[in-house]
């Protein structure tokens, strides 16, 4: 008999070593998430995946599933709090979706749609962040970075390169690249690297591929991120 947890009353099986998020995704239960990608070590920074376990909030992407856990996920309160976190991510950076190649395929935007975000609510920081177009094939627009560190993890763990890293702290955190000049073009990043593929937002984009999919045929034009990430939508 496999072990189970309950998520919003639904019994969800899990194997030893799985997190609540792993178990949920395997069972087709959607827990909103941004910094999590099943291919990489859980990170736990965006906090969108927060669920309530026995009355306490935990990040489901890092919390091991334990027999008998009663998990609350799709509740009004949690979704309201997740929406607030999403809004924080919007005002912290500079997200001008109409001018962003990722629009329609962006997970940050899609989560915002899923949570019904009508405005960013908070006052904007309008930070000054650098755009790095020095690489022949890849563009890095820090205005859209949400510090999920997927590129950091992918470059380190999948590509064996450590092209990306974090510097600064607090609201002054920043994404840095592994070259003395600080320019992406001077790193050994290749367009085929996993690090280039994993960005959930439009912060890392491949040059010359923008707007190739017309509006109406982009990933999230007709399918919610819930459908896509739990296998309910079409495959890319």
């Amino acid at each position, binding site marked *: 008999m496999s072990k189970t947890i309950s998520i919003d009353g639904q019994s969800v099986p899990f194997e030893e070593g799985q997190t609540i998020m792993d178990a949920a995704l395997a069972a087709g239960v959607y827990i909103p998430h941004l910094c999590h990608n099943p291919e990489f070590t859980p990170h736990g*920074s965006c906090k969108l995946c927060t669920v309530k376990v026995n009355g306490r909030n935990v990040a489901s992407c890092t919390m091991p599933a334990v027999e008998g856990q009663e998990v609350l996920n799709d509740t009004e309160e949690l979704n309201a709090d997740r929406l607030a976190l999403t809004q924080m991510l919007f005002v912290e950076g500079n997200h001008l979706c109409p001018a962003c190649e990722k629009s329609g395929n962006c997970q940050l935007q899609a989560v915002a749609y899923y949570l019904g975000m009508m405005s960013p609510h908070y*006052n904007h920081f309008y930070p000054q962040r650098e755009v790095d177009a020095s690489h022949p094939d890849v563009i890095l627009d820090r205005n859209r970075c949400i510090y999920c560190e997927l590129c950091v993890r992918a470059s380190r763990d999948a590509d064996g390169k450590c092209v990306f890293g974090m510097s600064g702290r607090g609201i002054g955190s920043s994404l840095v690249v*592994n070259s003395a000049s600080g320019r992406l073009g001077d790193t050994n990043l290749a367009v085929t690297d996993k690090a280039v593929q994993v960005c959930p937002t439009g912060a890392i984009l491949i040059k010359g591929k923008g707007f190739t999919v017309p509006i109406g045929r982009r990933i999230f034009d007709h399918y919610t991120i819930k459908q896509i990430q739990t296998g309910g939508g079409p495959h890319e």
Partner: protein
Amino acid sequence: MDRPETPDIAPLLTPILAHHGHDASKLLQILRDVQDACHIIPAGAIDLIAVHLGVPRVNVEGVAGFYSFLSTRPVGEYQVLFSGNITDQMLGQDDLMQYLCNKLWVESGKVSEDGLVSIAGTSCTGMCDQGPAALVNGWALTNLDRNRLDLIGELIRSRKPVAEWPPMLFETVDNIRRADVLLGEALAPGDAIRAVLARGARKTLAEMDNSNLRGRGGAGFKTASKWSFCHAAIVEEEGHVICDIGGHPERFIVCNADEGEPGTFKDRVLLNSYADLVFEGMTVGARVVGAGKGFLYLRGEYRYLLGQLEGVLKRRREAGLLGDNILGQADFNFDIEIHLGAGAYICGEESALIESLEGKRGRPRNRPPFPVTHGYQGRPTVVDNVETFACAAKIAAQGGAWFAALGTAQSTGTKLLSVSGDVSRPGIYEYPFGVTVRQVLADCGAEDPYAVQISGPSGTTISWKEFDRRIAFEDLPTAGAFMVFKRKRDVFDAVRNFTHFFAHESCGFCTPCRVGTALQQKIIDKIHSGHGTPSDLEELKRLGHLLKTMSHCGLGSSAANPVLDALAKFPDAFERKLAGLAFEPAFDLDGALETARKITGRDDEWAHL
């Protein structure tokens, strides 16, 4: 980004790298030394360090960018950092800082044109009982006033090396005002260790258990349980308990001397005058969990203690109380190394502290696993507060029952309080747990007390109505800070100071705290500038909820405490600052036109709002 031209950095780096054995886990220590030598971490140094330590450049840059005492932009040859705690502010810190700036012709936060001096603020330096305080090139200055600043200004202008400044400027005192069993009754070095060796590790753990000692760093976790979890981790790994035999090189005892909570300075006094007791406690812990190596993580602000602490360690080694075969016991090897922090409150959080010990950015880890199973280098590690170890030494020597007889049922023993603010006798007060706030206020000569900040910004604000509450885990738990505010003070100023503190110290890892503390600061500043509205207060409560419930670690989850407490207990402090009921813009409309007015030279009616 422009890279400042640096002279050949290699000759300077070579000895620093050699001194730290080209060890990547010493990265933070290496960068500290570079900063000392160059008043900047030059980009060229980052390249070279990365190469020599064999780590990616981004990692070095990441560490250099994280700690506030490291900078990738030049600071002055003399860097003066004024302690920014509310108690320093109440003693006139703002004016004094401005005074020194004027004197030295430098703007705060900038470097003078000749590169000689830079002046800025920093988080509490732990000298609240003898403030206003500051750091000059990392060395603690106390009791600042205009006379002293005149002298300091002269010394800087004449380029006198800090080492040659008059010692009087750096004098610190313990200010022990009330001593009980911990501070009052001496323990001869080695007594506790002898008792452990006589009794055996297992029974010592039982004594710890009987003592019911709870961690003094804030969370109040039962120390014996932590130690035995570490045990359990070892049992799981090795199949049997191997305490009582040899110091295992891959098990660690860490003493948390980060003491970053504003208003807290009791660990400073313990390390200054009771270092033997603390190291003794660490050694007791080492015997109990079979650890071979200990670290003292000393906050950068206390670097002035480093020399004397190294001296104590040396003396203990010579006395056979540290090193191999402690007290002649063939299988008892344990030694202690001191790591210096570099200005990051978050590094007091135990898992961030471990990251920092490993030479990384101080980012709290995901838990589980906890440090007791996966700590330093992924190995079982006990992290305890300075005072906890001091208590542990006492318990090892005098038994658990003796300790448990002091204090209250859930809070045994005594507690050191760091008392500061509007009192006539600031300093350290040791009381058995259970003492009332009123008693402490009477003893320290509090003048017309109105509010007390218990356990620092992350703790609890209490009002004059609550002075009969007790210092104890059952009522008011505390890591030691006790900041008193008299009636004349504006509680809002304290709240504002604390929100700035949290925004400055947030590590930036998780969304709610990284953005939430910054938003909280913006709203508080808006209210401060006279543009607050009731909807801003609602927004603060909502942010408070998000910080409390969604944050990754204790910093974020307590970052709204001062705001929420003050809103509940001192609503007037906010309400009298509100602009009115109507909506107020988020930013200063007229101010946002200033640049354009300058550019166009306009000052007509339509150029203002």
